[in-house]
């Protein structure tokens, strides 16, 4: 059952969990990027304006700790929110293949946009960041996202 209450409850919980794991417990990169999973789930439910707005707000929260690259997360998540909302018009299916690709590509795109926006002084090599680290993070976030969708009963056909 995909009631709005359930969807937004799961999104809210993922956001809380993200900051709980990354910030309160200080797990860093060993914890998955639940913020992008939450944004990608929410973006499928709203139009492009709301998707961008949610991405903007979540990005600002993530940027509160990146003093020398402030705005990079905001820029990346705003675009991911917009892109996620656009997929509603472009892709109708909710197959496992679509969901996996959607979550993984969404996370990879977020890392890529962050890498682009972060500025030359702080940017690490493309190969190490985007071809080695980002795909691993994308697979991690994708798997976690699928598990969340499955256990929360959000009702996507194949997962259910």
């Amino acid at each position: 059952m995909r009631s709005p209450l359930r969807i937004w409850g799961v999104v809210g919980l993922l956001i809380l969990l993200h900051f709980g794991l990354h910030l309160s417990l200080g797990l860093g990169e060993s914890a998955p990027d639940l913020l992008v999973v939450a944004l990608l789930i929410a973006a499928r439910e709203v139009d492009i304006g709301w998707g961008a707005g949610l991405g903007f707000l979540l990005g600002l929260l993530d940027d509160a700790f990146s003093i020398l690259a402030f705005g990079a997360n905001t820029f990346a998540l705003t675009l991911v929110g917009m892109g996620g909302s656009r997929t509603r018009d472009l892709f109708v299916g909710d197959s496992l293949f679509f969901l996996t690709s959607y979550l993984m590509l969404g996370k990879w795109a977020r890392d890529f946009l962050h890498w682009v926006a972060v500025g030359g002084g702080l940017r690490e090599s493309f190969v190490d960041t985007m071809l080695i680290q980002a795909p691993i993070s994308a697979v991690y976030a994708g798997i976690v996202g699928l598990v969340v969708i499955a256990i929360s009963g959000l009702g996507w056909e194949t997962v259910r």
Partner: protein
Amino acid sequence: MPSYKSDIRGSGKAQSGFIAFGFLVLSVIALYLPDPSQDEVASLLRGSVLRPFILAQEGLVRRSIHAEDTEVLQARLDSLEAVIANSNTLSEENARLRSLLDLSGRTPAQYVAASVIRSGTPGSESMFLLDEGTRSGVTKDSPVIMGRGLLGVVREAQATSATAMDWTHPQFWASAMTEDGSIYGFVEASRGRFREADRLLLNGIPFQEELEAGVVLVTSGLGGVYPRGIRIGVVIEESDAQEGWRRSYWLRPFVSPGEATHVQVRVSRGTPDTEVRAPR
């Protein structure tokens, strides 16, 4: 007759597109905001929405420090007592020599003990929060020190917290010298392929000077940020990166940022006080 519904949908879509474009423009503005405005927004968020998460980590860090093995703490206390006992004679001798030379007494440095909080969010690598701020005397550019040497420097300070960067940050640099003060240069962070491979590069050493492996480098006090004499690292080998008639050396820092949970922040206050103030 044109469909009324589709018109509404069309205009709604256009409106939504405008809103999305507006947020995109705002995000680009956030990216190019001047540093003070960015700092204001960031500290506002840290002090409001994210405060409960930061408080939770502060609590956990304090608990982990309190849970540290008492035997380890006792061993550290014993070592410190031995150092103090040995330095008593030196202090007396120093005071006597200063009075002979008619020099006034030095004002000892004051340190504030603080807990390190890492946010673990993307883009915050090499940055950490401290649970002490301007109320305790911590200011921008206060050096952050761990037992064995320099960890980093405070970037900005609020009333009860501060944001600092460690030596792995690409913008970290410090003026350095050998312990005997004979050779000067400056150290900067050099990123490895992975974070564990990060190390320091000592640059600007005159070509006629050579440093052996194992030579200890300390801050020289010339840069105006770090006071003289804070231990930075030890020379490993000469680097290939040479600039003109200058040599470069790889350094192994004394402090690993990953170990940092509890640090000392050097503060400048008028009171001649050598005590290390305990965290709140």
